[in-house]
């Protein structure tokens, strides 16, 4: 029977995480953005340890998706960069190990991921391969009982601070995408692994990003995560979770934009009344509310679908990702407009959120890729016999 209400436990969790994020996470949001890039890792480590203590990272490893999305929205609302770093460690790296790793792999890394003492990263994208993985060039060659990895990865979130990486590489190029790719665990400090300089990103600067280089990087046979040749399927699963997580991030970011804009609408006066009472500004606030509200619904719907292993979960996750990532950019734009010139100044919250929002439409499947995937689902359903 249709029921949209969260359970009592979920509501309690939401309240607890919201309060924690407000007091413990939000205060560092501005400094994570403005700090010199060499200062970021220390601040971020502090955020991770707090997230660990509050149980947030454990939730990413063990919680249901509805709870994760609810909690994620609260975190992203307080600090989108911390959200992204936590997602990259807890979900992209941690949950992949949780679902596909061996007992030994889990025992070695997951306690640290859950406590926030260990930070993980996922390294897939390359200069010539993003949405189209067939362009990957990183390879893993079997030498004796070891794998030797060669290649380089781009745009690895958390790379400058990560203690361990999941690396996607060809183990059998001839076998093609679905059987030729494999995922490897590579710990920081492994010989042949080099982390590149931290990139200057437009936004989400608190989630430091860099490329990594693998040059004759030799790892033991037990570094393989899942089956040899199972990397593509594994990445497909991770991407589903990440689409959902990014949806929650977009909603949280959108709510943050809406809240500062509503505050500004009430506090700022023009022509004798708060500007939010002018219809032009009010309509913008209303659109922000609408897009956030429906985005949250789509996100929770997709999360519930994934929790219940419905066949339509992947397409619902794409719908949520597409809707929320485009919404948050629209919302950030409206929020900037509501703030007028004051929003255009470094140090204003909206200036930071505006830059942060742009990421959502680009990562883990651009909007173009989401549309192609969603359209395929409908087109296939109504193929002529």
């Amino acid at each position, binding site marked *: *029977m*249709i*029921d*949209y*209400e*969260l*359970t009592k436990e*979920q509501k309690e969790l939401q309240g607890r995480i919201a309060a924690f994020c407000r007091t413990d996470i939000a205060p560092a949001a501005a400094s994570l953005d403005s700090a010199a890039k060499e200062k970021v890792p220390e601040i971020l480590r502090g955020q991770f340890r707090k997230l660990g203590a509050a149980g947030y990272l454990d939730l990413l490893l063990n919680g249901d998706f*509805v709870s994760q999305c609810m909690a994620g929205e609260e975190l992203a609302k307080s600090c989108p960069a911390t959200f992204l770093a936590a997602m990259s460690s807890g979900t992209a790296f941690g949950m992949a190990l949780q679902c596909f790793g061996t007992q030994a792999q889990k025992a070695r890394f997951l306690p640290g991921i859950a406590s926030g003492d260990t930070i993980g990263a996922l390294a897939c994208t390359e200069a010539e391969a993003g949405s189209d993985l067939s362009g990957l060039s990183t390879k893993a060659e079997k030498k004796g009982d070891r794998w030797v990895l060669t290649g380089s990865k781009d745009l690895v979130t958390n790379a400058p601070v990560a203690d361990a990486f999941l690396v996607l590489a060809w183990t059998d190029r001839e076998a093609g995408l679905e059987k030729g790719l494999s995922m490897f665990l590579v710990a920081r400090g492994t010989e042949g692994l080099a982390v590149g300089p931290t990139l200057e990103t437009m936004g989400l600067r608190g989630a430091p990003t860099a490329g990594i280089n693998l040059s004759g990087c030799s790892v033991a046979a037990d570094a393989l995560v899942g089956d040899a040749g199972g990397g593509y399927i594994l990445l497909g699963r991770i991407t589903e979770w990440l689409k959902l997580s990014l949806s929650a991030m977009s909603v949280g970011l959108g709510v943050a934009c809406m809240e500062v804009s*509503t505050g500004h*609408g*009430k506090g700022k006066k023009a022509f004798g009344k*708060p500007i*939010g*009472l002018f*219809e032009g*500004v*009010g*309509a913008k*606030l*209303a*659109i922000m*509310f*609408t897009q956030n*509200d*429906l985005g949250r*619904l*789509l996100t*929770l*719907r997709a999360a*519930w*679908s994934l929790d219940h292993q419905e066949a339509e979960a992947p*397409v*619902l996750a794409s*719908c949520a990702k*597409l*809707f929320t990532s485009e919404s948050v950019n629209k919302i950030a734009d409206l929020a900037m407009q509501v703030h007028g010139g004051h929003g255009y100044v470094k140090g204003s919250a909206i200036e930071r959120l505006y830059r942060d929002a742009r990421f959502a439409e680009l990562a883990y499947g651009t909007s*173009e890729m*989401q*549309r*192609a*995937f*969603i*359209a*395929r*689902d*409908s*087109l296939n*359903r*109504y*193929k*002529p016999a």
Partner: protein
Amino acid sequence: MDFTFTDEQRMFRETIYRFCKEEVYSLCEEADLKGEFSLEVWKKLGSMGLLGLPIPEEYGGSGADFVTCCLAGEAMGHAGLDGGHTLALGAHTYLCAANIMEHGTEEQKKKYLPGLATGEDIGCMGLTEPGSGSDAAALATTAVKKGDKYILNGSKTFITNAPLAKVFVVFATLDKAKRHKGITTFIVDRDAPGISTGNPMHKMGCKCSTTSEVFFEDCEVPAENLLGGEGNGWRIALGGVEWDRSTLLSPFLGGAMFMLENCSRYANERRAFGKAIGEFQSIQNRIADMRVFLEAAKLAVYRVAASKDNGVMLNPLLASVNKMYVGDKGFEMCSAAVDLFGGYGYIHEYPVERGLRDAKLGQLGGGTSDIMRMIVARFMMM
């Protein structure tokens, strides 16, 4: 949290969908071309119990819950029924009969509901006036108590079903100075002295629903036809919002399904430059956007319906969000469907042209999108 319909609900939806597709769809197409209400369509809908869905069985209805009512609306839209007939059903069932069901006395229910539930009597509701639309509290139709009667004077406009209606649920004011607090609701019979209806209006879309003005000239309404007590009209009108934001929107939701199906089929079949046009990204983009709209609209509509079924108070913000989103985005998507069909999209005999005309009403009726944004903003600024 649960997003699944019960088996019973699913089976019911399937039955309605099949019936409408096989027996009603082509009649609606013909009727829309002529721009006329079809009594045959009406009777068919009545034969399936669709004209009295939420009315309790003891009054001749089906006693359906809110979600089931929405599923029926969805199924009708999905089967391709035109927006005019579904609007006529909406005004009849949810604006007229449901108000009597929720606020009527036992005598009123016994007198009016059985006829309405079968569709034998057609119902309508009169709120909007020439001088007051979204600002409904400014209505000017007056009611004055005289002995055991109320005397109504004034006029209503854009009243769906009025030309055919036997039963009118009418909002009037006992004291205009009191604004909201003076508004009072009456059930007025077609044969009451002093009531008359204007000529049917020619509309852009939803052509098969009849629409006209209603005039009250010293119209005599027996005191026992007072609905819900003196001064309670505003509360009744607001309560109607729950129906308006769910059951009345549900045919639009089904309409989006109909459109997505037709667009997907067409994109698979129509070829250009040696391939199906569905291979072009610009076509795929439209199909993807329709799907996202459909998923979001579905969640929005059933949220209101489920909250009513589960006894959760309706959040007025969320109701406005529904109306705004389904209205605005629905129209945009219908326009995208016409684009997808190219020149054929502009032709009545293809299935998307009517949808665009019908969908425009979603942005206007029952509170414009501008007003929805105003309502949401007002709550946010509190």
